[in-house]
């Protein structure tokens, strides 16, 4: 069953009607092809107009959509010989962070990402994409491994943020994130990161301090969740839509601020309506970004990556 967001209700109603009419036809009733076509056009137009002017809060909901393709969907679509690696060699394996080796368009690469899971069972398994210190230490280990073997790194980021827990703090959540950011910046290999859903604060940048950072059209990237920001600055979590607006967290905003390198357009109605198209679009764009980087040596890549991040905030004005 398709999951509809609140603002998609009028579209859902139209599509329900179309479905109903179709069933009538199938059952041998009167031919309603013309009526169905008309309704379908109407639904399509409505979808188009709705998605053409999504508010930042609506984008936040789309970015968190349960049917949106997840990190592992991108890996399944694009990585051959996928060989997951596990563990931080110190404490545990954190399933919120996915990492491993494989081939992208024939070339050996290291792949990283945060995985939210796609049903109840996998969501629990992956801790809803919220990593603990062992997850960031696993990421760092794989980044360093990639560096040693000259493997380009691809990351797919989708997380509400690092897991806020007692054990996570006791094991050094902050240090683990800091070291993972450091590993990203130091990697002597090409590194392309894609924000595919939620880019939640430090937990996201830990896997995304890359040469090229892409964002899906309806993904978000923010220093704090709109709800968190609203409850601190407005003292009312219900003000989240207002906070989402103020935070400038959409792909378009981040591109305009020059904090990400490109925005990947999504199929009409969002990636969750047509995952295949979204997966293909990301794969193509990642390759377009990666290819020119392959010609550069490690020192150059690292120096340019540093220059890029050192500039951030210096001239960014909306």
């Amino acid at each position: 069953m398709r999951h509809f967001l609140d603002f998609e209700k009028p579209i859902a109603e139209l599509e329900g009607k179309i479905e109903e009419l179709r069933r009538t036809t199938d059952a041998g009733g009167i031919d309603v092809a013309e009526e169905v076509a008309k309704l379908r056009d109407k639904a399509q137009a409505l979808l188009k107009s709705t998605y053409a002017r999504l508010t930042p809060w609506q984008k936040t909901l789309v970015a968190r959509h349960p049917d949106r393709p997840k990190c592992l969907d991108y890996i399944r679509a694009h990585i051959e010989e996928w060989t997951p690696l596990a563990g931080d060699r110190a404490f545990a394996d954190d399933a919120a962070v996915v990492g491993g080796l494989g081939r992208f368009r024939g070339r050996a690469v290291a792949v990283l990402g945060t995985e939210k899971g796609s049903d109840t069972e996998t969501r629990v398994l992956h801790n809803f994409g919220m990593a603990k210190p062992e997850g960031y230490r696993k990421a760092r280990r794989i980044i360093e491994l990639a560096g040693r073997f000259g493997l380009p790194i691809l990351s797919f980021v989708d997380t509400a943020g690092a897991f806020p827990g007692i054990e996570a703090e006791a094991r050094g959540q902050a240090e683990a994130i800091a070291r993972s950011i450091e590993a990203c910046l130091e990697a002597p290999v090409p590194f392309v990161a894609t924000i595919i859903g939620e880019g939640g604060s430090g937990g996201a940048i830990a896997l995304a301090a890359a040469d090229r950072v892409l964002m899906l059209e309806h993904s978000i990237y923010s220093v704090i969740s709109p709800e968190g920001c609203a409850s601190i600055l407005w003292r009312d979590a219900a003000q989240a839509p207002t906070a989402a607006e103020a935070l400038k967290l959409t792909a378009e905003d981040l591109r305009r601020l020059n904090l990400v390198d490109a925005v990947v357009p999504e199929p009409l109605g969002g990636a969750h309506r047509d995952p295949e198209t979204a997966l293909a679009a990301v794969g193509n764009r990642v390759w377009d970004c990666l290819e020119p980087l392959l010609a550069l040596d490690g020192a150059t890549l690292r120096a340019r990556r540093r220059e890029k991040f050192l500039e951030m905030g210096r001239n960014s004005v909306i």
Partner: protein
Amino acid sequence: MNWISEWALPKIKTLFGAPREVPENLWHKCPACEQMVFHRDLERNLHVCPHCGHHMRVGARQRLDYTLDEGWQRIELPKAPQDPLRFRDQRRYVDRLREAQAKGGQEDAVVVAHGVIEGNRVVAAAFDFSFMGGSMSAGVGEALVTAARLAVLQDSPLIVFTASGGARMQEGAISLMQMPRTVIATRMVKEVGLPFIVVLCDPTTGGVTASFAMLGDIQIAEPGAMIGFAGARVIEQTVREKLPEGFQRAEYLLAHGILDMVVKRSEMRATLARLIGLLRLPERETAPAAEPMLTLAPPAPAEGPTPAA
């Protein structure tokens, strides 16, 4: 002026309940033990409660006064964009910012200085929690990058005293990007073989902890300082458990292997001086400041596949 006007008259006025001219903040209440402390005693004791030893929060310039030898100099910082997102919550960010600037007499939450600690030249950056919660803006990022560049230029160790609630929400993702930016600053210092020392002061949380503040060659904290990534309230709501005694305090972090030491404010100068003395190679002390020591540069990064042994 004589002893009558200076001493006797005020005494008499006080005795007879005349209007008090003394400012009310002559006495401070310790937030921990709630005892009253006379301001001169507090100042003499480096803002540490003489009754219970609680380390009270101090401003950036006060911190530098307490740590560096007399005569330290503040560094002019490059200007960062003010209110890049034109952010507005219940108030306009630009108004909050101007108010903090007027009140604190500084551009943003970090003061950068160069000076000497017991004969050792250092570059120091100190956060001011009273400036918008010491939150990390583009200006704060700029301050740390400047401090790192200056340390490299002057061939001096870099010491950062943190006190921050984390990211500056009003600068959105720009604030987030100060995490990698400040991590790069730490790399610049470390790569030329200079010590980078972090002193975590109360409180240090969020994006500041999760970037440069956890990457010190030596990690020091003041006693009782609250240090963590996620806020205690958020954790409580997520895990629905009572937080352990002393959770996210300096001593808790020390016990969990996250810090090297917890150092009292009164011993900070001597500790920093000793550490710098131990970390600096003897030949470096006589080396000309402008010439980087090539032998101390990190090995070139591995390019291409490394053959298996």
